[in-house]
């Protein structure tokens, strides 16, 4: 509470530097921090990946459990995406049930996977109307250095690409391959002092008053958008951000992801 002044000072400092064309760590405005991906980091998961973008550190695990389909869609499996902002990851996170930030994070990542129809849900059906795979995509944030959503989306698609169907553990036979048909990637941008910045760190997130996440697919189409934050945006800014988002996603895709077969 007594530190609110410090918070303002920090915001102003970020804004001033940005308006002088300077960004922490000498980054370009449209440059990501260093990205690294570690695969299969959680052997109890069907698939997993740990993604670091700068100081941001996110672990995503994919688990498949047996369950019943929804009554209005008896022939397809179920995806449940969940995010935990555990207090280990940031002085601002608190223990407790999911809040609007963790819910939004999970739902935006989920939206990209659904919108792109990345997972073939029909292949997750075992017995129509009775038994399907419930796929849990769990986003576990370890260090919040800003831009969680891009790290989580990249972690989710990487974990999916490495996941196997655990037929054996459940006494089932069949192909263990999970059908992963697209590579939706999130690219988040903020606008500070009239400049569009890609991949904001946490100081930039605080200094910016609004943010746009653009999720795009291998073919350059969009499979999700989410504006957040307390300020408005012009049509032009949004169109430009969509352009940049698709381009940046392409670069990351090329560098880090397998091409879906």
């Amino acid at each position, binding site marked *: 509470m007594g530190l609110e002044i410090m918070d303002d000072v920090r915001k102003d400092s970020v804004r001033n530097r940005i308006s002088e064309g300077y960004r922490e760590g000498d980054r370009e405005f449209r440059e990501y921090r260093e990205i690294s991906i570690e695969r299969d980091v959680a052997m109890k998961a069907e698939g997993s990946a740990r993604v670091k973008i700068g100081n941001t550190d996110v672990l995503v695990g994919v688990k498949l459990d047996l369950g019943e389909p929804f009554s209005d869609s008896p022939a397809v499996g179920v995806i449940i995406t969940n995010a935990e902002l555990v207090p280990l990851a940031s002085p601002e996170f608190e223990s407790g049930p999911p809040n609007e930030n963790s819910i*939004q994070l999970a739902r935006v990542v989920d939206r990209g996977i659904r919108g792109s129809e990345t997972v073939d849900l029909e292949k997750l059906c075992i017995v129509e109307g009775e038994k399907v795979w419930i796929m849990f995509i769990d986003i576990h944030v370890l260090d919040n250095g800003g831009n969680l959503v891009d790290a989580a989306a990249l972690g989710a698609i990487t974990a999916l690409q490495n996941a196997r169907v655990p037929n054996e553990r459940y006494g089932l036979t069949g192909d263990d391959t999970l059908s992963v048909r697209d590579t939706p990637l999130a690219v988040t941008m903020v606008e500070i002092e009239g400049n569009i910045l890609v991949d904001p760190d946490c100081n930039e997130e605080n200094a910016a008053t609004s943010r*746009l996440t653009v999720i795009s697919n291998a073919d350059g*189409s969009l*499979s999700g958008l*989410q*504006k957040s934050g*307390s300020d408005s945006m012009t049509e032009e800014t949004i169109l430009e951000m969509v352009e940049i988002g698709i381009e940046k996603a392409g670069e990351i895709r090329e560098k880090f992801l397998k091409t879906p077969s």
Partner: protein
Amino acid sequence: MKKGEEIEFIKDGKRVDGRTFDELRNIKIEVGVLERADGSCYLELGDNKVIAAVYGPREMHPRHAQDAKMAVIKFRYNMAPFSVDDRKRPGPDRRSVEISKVSREAFEPVIMREYYPKAAIEVYVEILQSDAGTRTAGINAASVALADAGIPMKDLVSSIAVGKVGGEVVLDLNAVEDNYGEADMPIAMIARKNMITALQMDGRLTKDEFGRGLKLAMNACHQIYELQRTALIERYNKRESVKFEEREA
């Protein structure tokens, strides 16, 4: 509807309910419908029925959540249990938490929050009947209820969705279209300034479709703005005439 049954969503340039691609559903707005709330609005958007109430500015509870520099906006989007086909369990679910956040942020750019440090401005939206587009209906109603409550705002916020169905980008999906639609994109906007305050997208759109959809939605927000403004003027006139009659009596 069973799988395999085909709906022809677009026929002769018209949609399942006879609308053109860029046509809104019927909108009905009533201002000041509740007694206890400081401001309120009942709104129908096609078969959606929503009601919004505003309380405040009043003291923010709990105190540790107060903001010393400006009012905190609370926004609660809630569905009545009988507003949907399968009864909805009371209480917030993940979807309504996200909608509440996005809706709140749609108003943060326009409400003069700095006038009321430490206060809360509370917006409650109840969905009584849903038919796709409830969040945009809720934002439209909330905007009018905020004005009715006399909350100082830079401008009204107007909201609508565009979607893609039968391969076409169309305005304001109804429930049948939405269930079989390929994409849905709700936006909120300060119509008079063409500033976008909320934007979400589900499904799949090409960049070009996105651009066209955004335009379509922005245009429709101007129409909605006029309806909101008209409803508020009527309300204001009615109040004035009541006051006049009171003075005469």
